[in-house]
């Protein structure tokens, strides 16, 4: 390159460690616009101490997706050390130093794959150079293995630690000159590594947000209105204050923004969380609940039907001439689908520890998006990020819930009201269930036209969803105009109608796709049967021909690669022996495919129905997330978890019902999660394409739901068009 705009040498900074050894900071830009950090922010930090201990800083939040293990694996492999030499430190939140620190969207693997390896390779190159200088040989003659340097000709070798201090004085290499390993040279990547925190988890060490304890700390609860957007009128402060253990009762008028600010509420602060929670019962709060009047599941259902009756909605996408082709179709198929609001219900209820002293906040927060929490605190309380020290803790699950940070604002507000006293705010399970940012419900009116030759020629969807007070689609409630089969059918129309909601909505694992895949792949199963084929047959016919990349219509996200889609579909048909039908009565296989978060997944479910009971016997998964599975042990766990999570959404009766804005569900008896007894066998096949690796927290989930409902149809003739699954025959 003749005209480099950045000096690639300045992307690396070496320094001497206190106590001897070598630290390397890599400031390599991440290759994704959405996560673009200002130049000079740290992508990786690795140090090698004199005793050979390699320390890698993990800057992303850990929610169980395994990132605290898998990103350091990338660095350590190129550094060519032993995994047992590696220690990992969780970084605090520091936007100036690290740029955005987020766990969401299955983005960490694709964005970090190259820069993490470059950082490791740069550190290795400097150790090689230092050893070459010490031995007075050419760097080309120095090799490495398992954390040692070798000069084969003279039979000399050294551990990394012995030249680490000398390496610190060298000029870092140009990252453009670094030779990265080829996949067959990997010694850590692609091999199963136990999660870095696992030994501390099985022995009960304090590592989660809820485990934070500080000297003199008090425990807090925050009572909010039962309905969304409720305002505080009055409370019996004295009665609660007299309860055992209670130190403070603090009525708080929020900033009127229950979504992205502080909701009105009453904080009860006590010596013990249970005592604080007991004292809530004495509060007798009076609320103004008028804002949520009429926001009921039943009313939403009626409005959706009215929207269907009123027309086809605002046009979001039109390809070709759907109206004419629908009118001329040899056969038409019509069906309406719907799904409910659902909650995230991570196992660790929302919590946050905070102390406010001399105008500064120090916080310990289990959050997937700490930057968002800092913004909310600034807006609601006027405390800027420069006056906040924020420590990231491990999280007891996220699933998207912890992308929203209302609990951080509440903890900060309570701490600010009691300067000098550390407080830990903890929600009860009931709080967590009733104050979620729910996966929004939605309704779809589909129609498809099949041409005389049996091909799907036209496809339309009228989607009814929710809008916020700004008139735009509510968070995580919009239709992706790239929803399959868009791009694969010549004539297509996607329309949208919206009704207002005051209910807080937000992304749930595989947002959008977790619902859109169910409705579209179930309806396409109906279309395939009407066209005389089956769903994999229909999908393969639409994907046939030369491999092509279909760019997203809205310009967001990666293109859809028809070849990768075809490969995973063909793979799962083979592993599941798709054409061999189960012999038992009321037992059958169902199929579905989806593409989201850059991952391609085709899945087959074998299920049976006996006396109204649905049993899932086996699930086959074929997935393409690129050329390399970074940590096979972690990757398989993500897929298995996603499959069982999706099955539970369909089969455990999961739904959030609203009456005048009040959530009717409260705990795990009326919002059920998957339990061990229904666990099916799950067979996973990786299809390794020539593309860089991408993330796995989300894309395996969506197809399993329609694969299940299509299996139920094949087994019983009962077409499931609404979630959660309810059998007509039951």
């Amino acid at each position, binding site marked *: 390159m003749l005209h480099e705009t950045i000096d690639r040498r300045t992307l690396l900074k070496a320094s001497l460690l206190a106590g001897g050894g070598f630290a390397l900071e890599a400031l390599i830009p991440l290759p994704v616009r959405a996560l673009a950090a200002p130049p000079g922010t740290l992508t990786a930090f690795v140090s090698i101490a004199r005793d050979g201990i390699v320390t890698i800083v993990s800057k992303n939040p850990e929610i169980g997706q395994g990132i605290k293990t898998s990103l350091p694996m990338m660095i350590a492999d190129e550094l060519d050390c032993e995994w047992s030499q590696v220690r990992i430190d969780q970084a605090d939140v520091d936007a100036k130093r690290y740029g955005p620190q987020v766990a969401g969207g299955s983005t960490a693997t694709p964005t970090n794959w190259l820069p993490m390896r470059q950082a490791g390779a740069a550190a290795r190159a400097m150790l090689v150079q230092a050893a070459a200088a010490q031995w007075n040989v050419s760097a080309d003659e120095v090799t490495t293995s398992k954390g040692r340097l070798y000069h084969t000709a003279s039979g000399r070798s050294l551990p990394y630690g012995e030249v680490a201090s000398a390496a610190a004085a060298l000029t870092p290499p140009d990252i453009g000159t670094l030779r990265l390993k080829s996949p067959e040279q990997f010694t850590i990547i692609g091999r199963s590594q136990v999660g870095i*925190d696992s030994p501390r*988890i*099985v022995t*009960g060490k304090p590592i989660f947000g809820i485990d934070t304890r500080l000297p003199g700390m008090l425990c807090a609860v925050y009572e909010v209105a039962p309905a969304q957007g409720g305002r505080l009128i009055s409370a019996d402060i004295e009665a609660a204050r007299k309860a055992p253990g209670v130190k403070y009762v603090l009525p708080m008028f929020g900033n009127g923004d229950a979504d992205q600010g502080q909701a009105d509420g009453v904080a009860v602060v006590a010596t*013990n969380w249970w005592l604080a929670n007991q004292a809530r019962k004495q509060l007798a709060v009076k609320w103004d609940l008028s804002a949520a009047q009429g926001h009921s599941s039943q009313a939403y259902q009626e409005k959706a039907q009215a929207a269907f009756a009123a027309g086809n909605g605002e046009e979001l996408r039109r390809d070709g001439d759907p109206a004419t082709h629908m009118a001329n179709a040899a056969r038409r198929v019509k069906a309406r689908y719907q799904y409910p609001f659902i909650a995230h219900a991570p196992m660790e209820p929302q919590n946050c520890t905070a102390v406010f002293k001399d105008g500064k906040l120090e916080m310990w927060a289990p959050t997937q998006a700490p930057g968002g929490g800092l913004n909310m605190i600034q807006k609601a309380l006027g405390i800027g990020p420069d006056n906040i020290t924020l420590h990231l803790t491990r999280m007891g699950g996220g699933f998207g819930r912890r992308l929203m940070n209302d609990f951080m604002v509440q903890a900060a507000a309570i701490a600010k009201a009691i300067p000098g006293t550390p407080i830990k705010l903890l929600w009860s*399970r009931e709080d967590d269930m009733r104050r979620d940012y729910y996966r929004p419900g939605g309704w779809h009116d589909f129609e498809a036209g099949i041409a005389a030759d049996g091909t799907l020629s036209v496809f339309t969807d009228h989607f009814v969803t929710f809008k916020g007070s700004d008139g735009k689609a509510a968070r995580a409630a919009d239709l992706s105009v790239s929803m399959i089969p868009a791009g694969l059918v010549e004539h297509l129309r996607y329309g949208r109608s919206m009704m207002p909601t005051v209910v807080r909505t937000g992304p749930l694992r595989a947002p959008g796709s977790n619902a859109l895949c169910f409705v579209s792949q179930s309806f396409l199963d109906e279309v395939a049967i009407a066209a005389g084929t089956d769903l994999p047959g229909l999908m393969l016919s639409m994907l046939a021909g030369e491999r092509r990349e279909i760019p997203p219509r809205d310009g967001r996200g990666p293109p859809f690669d028809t070849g990768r889609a075809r490969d995973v579909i063909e793979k799962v048909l083979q592993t599941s022996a798709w054409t061999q039908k189960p012999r038992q009565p009321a037992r059958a296989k169902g199929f579905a495919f989806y593409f989201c978060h850059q991952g391609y997944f085709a899945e087959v479910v074998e299920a049976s129905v006996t006396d109204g009971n649905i049993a899932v016997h086996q699930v086959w998964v074929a997935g393409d997330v690129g050329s390399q599975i970074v940590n096979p042990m972690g990757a398989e*766990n993500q897929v298995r*978890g996603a499959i069982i999570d999706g099955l539970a959404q369909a089969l455990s009766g999961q739904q959030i019902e609203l009456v005048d804005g009040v959530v009717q569900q409260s*705990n795990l008896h009326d919002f059920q999660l*998957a339990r061990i007894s229904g666990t099916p066998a799950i067979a996973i096949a990786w299809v390794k394409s020539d593309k860089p690796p991408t993330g796995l927290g989300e894309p395996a989930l969506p197809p399993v739901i329609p694969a299940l409902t299509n299996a139920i149809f094949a087994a019983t003739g009962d077409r499931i068009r609404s979630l959660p699954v309810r059998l007509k025959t039951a």
Partner: protein
Amino acid sequence: MKHKLHINGQVHEVEAPPEMPLLWVLRDELGMVGTKFGCGAGLCGACTVHLNGAARRSCQTPVGSVQNARITTIENIGETVVGARLQEAWLKVDVMQCGYCQAGQIMSAAALLTHTPKPSIEQINSAMAGNVCRCACYNRIQTAIQMAAGVHEESTHVA
């Protein structure tokens, strides 16, 4: 009210109302936070401890009722043969994703293996039915228990 508790081989004296659940005595009075809070209603099993070797939901166990019991928590379960084998198996198959429920899972599994050293898969599912894993690491929980019980071939592909 003062309570004398026998926890993990040590005697602790705590001042608390007798109806306070053992969970909150452990977490907030004694600082033993390995035992987790999940639902507060005996529905998820995250708070499982042993009372005289039997699995109990500490969120549903008033402290006033356990004065004479031998209480064991995740912090000390590794001192038992069964507990140590389970912890080893848990790491071998790396059961967990987020890990939050795993203390409760291991405590329930330890109670199972103490009474049923070679459980069938049905016995495992039955004993573990009260423990929710939101990340759904159930295949591996089954495998790890079988491995600790010596009824799982180590050469078998890890679930």
